[in-house]
């Protein structure tokens, strides 16, 4: 049995219509399964954090990061895709 591989997608930028749609569309296209979403709007700034399962993704995580980066730039948003290990190792003992 393969271990489930998870990544975290963060989206930061000015709030507008359709951000969630854009990002989740891209997830569907790339075979990325969304597990958990939290989003908030602070003084016009849109902040969304998604936990996703990339075990069956069509691309490797490094290529996913590039694809989301391009999407982010086209919509004036900052989108990061990072392996969950980085957060686990930095913040959990």
């Amino acid at each position: 049995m393969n271990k489930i591989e998870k990544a975290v997608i963060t989206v930061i930028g000015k709030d507008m219509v359709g951000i969630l749609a854009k990002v989740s569309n891209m997830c569907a296209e790339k075979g990325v399964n969304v597990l958990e979403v939290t989003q908030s709007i602070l003084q016009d700034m849109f902040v969304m954090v998604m936990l996703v399962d990339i075990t069956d993704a069509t691309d490797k995580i490094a290529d996913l990061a590039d694809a989301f980066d391009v999407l982010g730039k086209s919509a004036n948003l900052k989108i990061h895709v990072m392996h969950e290990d980085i957060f686990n190792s930095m913040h959990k003992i």
Partner: protein
Amino acid sequence: MNTNEILETINMIDNEDLDVRTITMGISLLDCIDPDVEKATQKIYDKICRYAENLVKTGEEISRQYGIPIINKRISVTPIAMVSGACPGASPVRFAATLDRAAKTVGVNFIGGYSALVQKGFGPGDYALIESIPEALSETDFVCSSINVGSTKAGINMDAVAKMGKIVKKTAELTADRECIGAAKLVVFCNAPEDNPFMAGAFHGPGEPDCVINVGVSGPGVVRAAIQKSGGGCDLTQIAELIKRTAFKITRMGQLVAQEASRRLCVPFGIVDLSLAPTPAIGDSVAYILEGMGLEQCGAHGTTAALALLNDAVKKGGVMASSSVGGLSGAFIPVTEDAGMIQAARSGCLTLNKLEAMTAVCSVGLDMIAIPGDTPAEIISGIIADEAAIGMVNSKTTAVRVIPAVGKKAGEELDFGGLLGSGPIMDVNPASPKEFIGRGGKIPAPLQSLKN
């Protein structure tokens, strides 16, 4: 999923210059020793290219997977004097040229280990290598050199100290047309660590395994931001705790990268070096951390105490975060690489004397300091002797990397560009130690009891 923690990490990377400074592959060249210089250099070239073939590519892949910038990929090798000593007829510069060629083939931006360990005396190979340093550093682009002239157990080899004053000066002179950059690639150590991943002092010690991955983390900007956010109400105990917590997080990231690099390259993981290494980027400065603790400017009275707190807290936080800590680990104070130090040196607040005091409590020594080009060799030797004495007596690593700025005087500037930065030429006390340095001999190792 804790949103705050995730956003904290992203903020550290995006806005506070958090990065992994270097993945350094240490490669032993002891099995390349051959009395025929052609064969020896061929074996060295082949071994480095074989072992480090995927180093740069792997570093970039890890960087993309975790979203962490990994700035440098580098190589350290066995001190070349141990290898070149077997070819007494050949110039050691041949080996420097080979290292440079191998570095260019595999795509790393520095290769360290044009080194000799002479704390107790010279072998013929050591002497030949030291003599060849100016030529080797002026004719290569990526080779870094280091010489260990003293240790707590062996004392200080003052003949080597006298020699190195001349070598530093000559190295600067031979690269005078390139901002004297040769001297920026040459470090004189006392108590040199054998597993240091940071240039220019990295070499792969003779006690190390055949090949190993060492990782150097950084993050002065993150520590500075944490102190800034805490506001003015914290006392120094709380600041020390804050630095420990921050250093822990930074080091965990380094540990993750080191383990992943080790796994992918099938090379054992060596150590994480948890140094705060500044860059010329605004904000990524150790001086700003000290100023954030409440000093008007780095170099003010109180700077040594603030640096002692910082250096110790970084180690305490980092040690728990990694299974194996080594190298230089602590806070670096390279003047030309640190925006805050550059400002303080320009304004005259930070002097060479204060820097010397700071080296007694930081992790390395007098680092990246431009001095007037007409400084006599014996004064450079005097600077080296003082630093080595501080290291020897305090059982710590100290080093000297000064750059005599040929044709320039105090107050003018040198500009290396890139990570090496730029900075003002600092005043040096002109009184001569010529007779003292000229005596040669050894300063005996210090007593380890009666500590007062």
